[in-house]
Every structure is written in structure tokens, then in C-alpha cells.
């Protein structure tokens, strides 16, 4: 039995939910995916607010739920800290009263002291502690909700879209709070979010979900470099995705093979790329392939046509603060779209209509089974 978190769920009703989620003690896991993907349902199963049709929940060596064994612990017996999306603070109680509610088993005087300690810990001033939730800002309410979850001495901390109702200015402070908590708590933390930037910023590992299904889990770096399917690539926001034909290795160099970029018939416009063969794809089949943004660089025009270099035309340029988004058309396979996000000096002087070349680091090309267009 793992010392961290294990959630296994198999159910069709009331909504389909399938998958296995694991986290080590002290690890921060981000559940990402579109709304309706089942992220919150997974949290509810972990917290004991929803009983799955089939499944298990184990935390810190304890079994909280095992449907096959008929074992079920209600939330009261789980020592789980859950920060709700809209905080779910008791409107009739002060911040202090809200946190003290988690400490009912303690003597009254100790309750107040302990609640004040937790509120101070998350950065709430003495004056604010006596206010009711409606008199606090979104960010302050969020801190109260976190303090309430911590006061429970949780073996598992669950955060359900905790930043969705907080403005950008206050998010930075809350990100720091979460980062601090990670260091001091040695329990698994699960964060539900649909903000990929947030997930990459905070999480040790991502769990990508869609339509009630866990699609892939791994470090943000890994998921972005090697999405398992085209759907995962879409969900983690990989902008550049194309289709091609995987020929497979030619026997000359193990671990490498040929990818034909263009139609399956291999017309004149098709280009053959020498890319990594991870051994997961059988040869001679249509594939989807991606390449991470940082494996694409701008190059001199005269390099076009050399290995991994393509001529391109700039279609549109959008400067947004410190970054620039450019859409280009690559002169390959009848013209393929490419989106670039640039932040360095090279972004200046880029303008629509310009001809240039881009270089791909072909070792970073990642192949996936082809998903039907749609």
C-alpha cells in the first residue's frame, strides 16, 4: 500500500468516471481538463462526498474507501482538507468561527487560539479575523478556506479551482501560499484547475482528464513534450500539431526513423524527416505529430531546405506585452500552419508578409496515433 494517495475509480453512473490517480506524500498534483472532464468528481470521491460505483481510495497507508470490500469512511472520518471552488464559508460565522468549526473536538478556549494561529499562518490580520466572509475580499476568503482545511490536520489536501474567483493581482500571493504549504506539509496535495499556466507553475505532476477519463499523468515537462494522444496535446495547449505518415526505422540507426510530412501518397510536396523512434508506433501508418514551442527557432532565410529547416511566410503578428504571437505558413506539404510565441529580441521587427526560415529540433518531434479530423 502506498504511503501517498491512490484513487481508483470505475463508474458509469451518475456520470462516467474512469482512471487511476497516484501522488506521493508532499507531491502537488494538478488535475487539468475542460469543464465536465470529471476533475471535481475525482476530488469528491477522494473527500468522501461521492461514493463511486467501483473503486478504492487510499491515503497515507489507510484505506478510506474500497467498494469491493464494502469499506466506506464518511468525510468526517477522513481527515481531508478540501478548499471548495467558491470557498463554502459559513456566512453567519466570522473567519475565526469558520476555522474553529474544524476544531470542535478541542476545548473551547483552545479552539479559538488554534484558529487564530492558522489564520495568522495564511496571512490574515487580527482585524480581519473577526469579520464575516461577506466583509472579506475574494483572496481573503480563499485564505480563510485554506486555514479551515489546514486546521483539520489533513492527511490529504484538495483544492478545487481555488483561484477561479480571485483576481490576477491577488493570485500571485496565493500561488506563494500554495508553494509554501507544499514545503511544510508532507501530505499529497491535489489541485483542480483549468488554467494550464497555473498547473505548470505549481504542480509536480499533471493528470490530464477529459470526459470522465484520466488520459495521461506525468510531469508538466513530460506531458508537454510527449502527449500520449492528440486530445491530450489539445488539452495541454500544444498549438502546433500536424498529420503525417510514419514509415518507421530503416535499420541504419536504431532509435530513429522516417516521418513523411505530407499526404500519404507522398506527392512532390512531401518532406521526409528523420525523427526519434520511441518504439511505440508500428511502421507504415498515419500519425499526428507535435513539436514543443521551444524546439522551434527562427533561422536565416538561406538555411531553408536544409535538414529540419523550412521556408515560411509570416501571416500575422500580434504583440502582447512581453510576448509576441506570430502565425506563419510553412512551405511544406502544400503549406502548413505554424504558431510561434516569441519573447526574445528576435520578436522585434517581425511583420506580416515577411519571408523567413524556421528550424525544428527534429529530436523533439513526438508522434501519436492519428485522431480522425474533428
Amino acid at each position, binding site marked *: 500500500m502506498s504511503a501517498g494517495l491512490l484513487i481508483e475509480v470505475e463508474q458509469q453512473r451518475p456520470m462516467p468516471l474512469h482512471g487511476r490517480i497516484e501522488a506521493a506524500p508532499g507531491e502537488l498534483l494538478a488535475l487539468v481538463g475542460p469543464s465536465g472532464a470529471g476533475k471535481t468528481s475525482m476530488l469528491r470521491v477522494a473527500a468522501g*462526498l461521492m461514493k463511486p460505483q467501483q473503486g478504492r481510495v487510499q491515503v497515507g497507508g489507510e484505506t478510506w474507501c474500497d467498494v469491493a470490500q464494502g469499506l466506506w469512511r464518511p468525510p468526517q472520518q*477522513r481527515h481531508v482538507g478540501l478548499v471548495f471552488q467558491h470557498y463554502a464559508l459559513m456566512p453567519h460565522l466570522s473567519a475565526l468561527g469558520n476555522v474553529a468549526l474544524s476544531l470542535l473536538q478541542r476545548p473551547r478556549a483552545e479552539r479559538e487560539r488554534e484558529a487564530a494561529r492558522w489564520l495568522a499562518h495564511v496571512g490574515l490580520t487580527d482585524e480581519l479575523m473577526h469579520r464575516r466572509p461577506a466583509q472579506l475580499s475574494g483572496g481573503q476568503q480563499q485564505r480563510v478556506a485554506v486555514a479551515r482545511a489546514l486546521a*483539520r490536520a489533513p492527511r490529504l489536501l484538495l483544492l478545487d479551482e481555488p483561484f477561479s474567483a480571485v483576481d490576477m493581482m491577488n493570485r500571485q500571493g496565493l500561488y506563494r501560499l500554495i508553494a509554501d504549504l507544499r514545503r511544510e506539509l508532507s501530505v499529497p496535495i491535489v489541485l483542480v484547475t483549468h488554467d494550464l499556466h497555473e498547473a505548470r507553475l505549481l504542480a509536480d505532476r499533471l493528470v490530464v482528464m477529459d470526459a470522465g477519463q484520466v488520459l495521461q499523468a506525468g510531469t508538466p515537462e513530460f506531458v508537454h513534450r510527449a502527449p500520449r494522444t492528440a486530445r491530450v496535446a489539445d488539452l495541454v495547449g500544444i498549438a502546433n500539431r500536424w498529420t503525417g505518415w510514419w514509415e518507421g526505422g530503416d535499420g541504419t540507426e536504431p532509435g530513429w526513423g522516417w516521418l513523411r510530412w505530407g499526404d500519404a501518397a507522398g506527392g512532390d510536396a512531401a518532406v521526409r524527416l528523420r525523427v526519434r523512434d520511441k518504439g511505440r508506433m508500428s511502421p507504415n501508418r498515419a500519425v499526428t505529430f507535435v513539436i514543443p514551442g521551444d524546439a522551434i527557432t527562427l533561422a536565416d532565410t538561406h538555411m531553408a531546405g536544409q535538414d529540419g529547416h523550412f521556408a515560411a511566410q509570416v501571416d500575422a503578428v500580434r504583440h502582447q506585452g512581453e510576448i509576441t504571437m506570430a502565425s506563419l505558413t510553412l512551405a511544406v506539404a502544400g503549406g502548413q500552419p505554424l504558431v510561434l510565441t516569441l519573447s526574445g529580441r528576435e520578436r522585434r521587427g517581425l511583420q506580416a508578409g515577411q519571408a523567413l526560415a524556421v528550424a525544428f529540433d527534429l529530436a523533439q518531434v513526438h508522434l501519436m496515433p492519428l485522431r480522425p479530423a474533428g
Partner: protein
Amino acid sequence: MVDWQALILSLELAAVTLLVLLPLGLALGRWLARTPWRGKAWIEALVVLPLVLPPTVLGYYLLVAFGGASPLGKLFADLGLPLTFSFGGLVLASVIFNIPFMVQPVQRAFEAIPRDLAEAAACSGLGAWQTLVRVELPLAWPGILSALVLTFVHTLGEFGVVLMMGGSIPGETKTIAIAIYDRVQAFDLAGADRMALVLLLLSLLAVAASFFATTRLTAAARR
């Protein structure tokens, strides 16, 4: 002349009705607010029924169900607690007649509490009873208060069902509304006038006080 005995009897009836109906209304109202059961529409319809039926129809069925000829009525009569033409019978009728006035506001009050508060309470370690006492009742309190006042005032002014079930026995079943009716029948308009005024003022005062309190409570809970 005000029939003080009738007024006191009405106040007693209203108080006893509240005592019986409060726990019943809380339990039923909260259950209706939370149950996912689909058949609850039928229960809700039954709850509203006393509101839409003429008091005479309700009184008639109560007579049939609890009169001396019915098994239930006979049982209670044998125990020395006849359910017709007695104070006990009035209480029973009054409780049934007031169910919608109690249950509906209570149900609305519990429905208005966001569902995630109870879940947050459970995750904070609160049992069902603790959640009820520390979270739900304080939040539902304005609604419960208005249910109490409505029921109280409605019982004071109850006429049709009382007449059917209780008749007009002084000190036993002759409530203020019946007394007013008696005075009018006896052409003592001055007496009827004064008692009507007392009832009017009492009702107005109670309802106004409850509105005032509800507004303040609700504002306090949001502040």
C-alpha cells in the same frame, strides 16, 4: 365586551399548535428540501392541500376520521381524550390545517442554504446533528421565524375547521373567531367590533414584528 376567555383559549390553541408543529415542520421541511426522491412532489402536494381545500371539507374529513364513529375516534374517546368537540381535537385539527404554513417556509429556508455548506461542514468533521445545529438552523432561522409567526396568526384567526371539529363550547372550543361570529349572530355588533379589532391588531403586530426581525436577521447574516 371582549370575550377574554375565548381570546385566551385562542392564544393557548396557537401556542400548543406551534409546540407540536415546530419539530414536525422542521423535520418534514428539511427532508423535503434535501431529499432526491422523485415521489416528493406527492408529499409536497399533500402538504399544500389544507391551503386549497375549503375549511369545511377539511373539517368534514377530520370529523369522519376522528369522530366517535371512527375506530381512531373511539379509541381516543375510550382513553378519555375525545377528538371531537374538545380542546385536544382542536389542536389536532389546527396542526393539520397549519401544516402548509409551517412546512413551506421552513422548506424554502433550508433549500436556500447552498449545498456545499453542508459538505464543507462534513469535511470539517461535523456530524449530521452538529451541522444542523451549528450551520443549517442559524442560516434557516429567519425562515423558521416567519413560519412560526404565520402559523400562530393563522391559528388565532381559524374559523371553519374549528367550527366543524369543535363547535362552540365556552372554555373548551370557543375560540375568538367563533366568539366574534356568535356576537354577530346575536346582533351585538359593538362586541364583535372590539374583538375583531383586538384580533386585527394582534395579527398585524405579530406579522410586522416578524418581517422586521427577518429583515434584520437576514441583513445580520450577510454583514
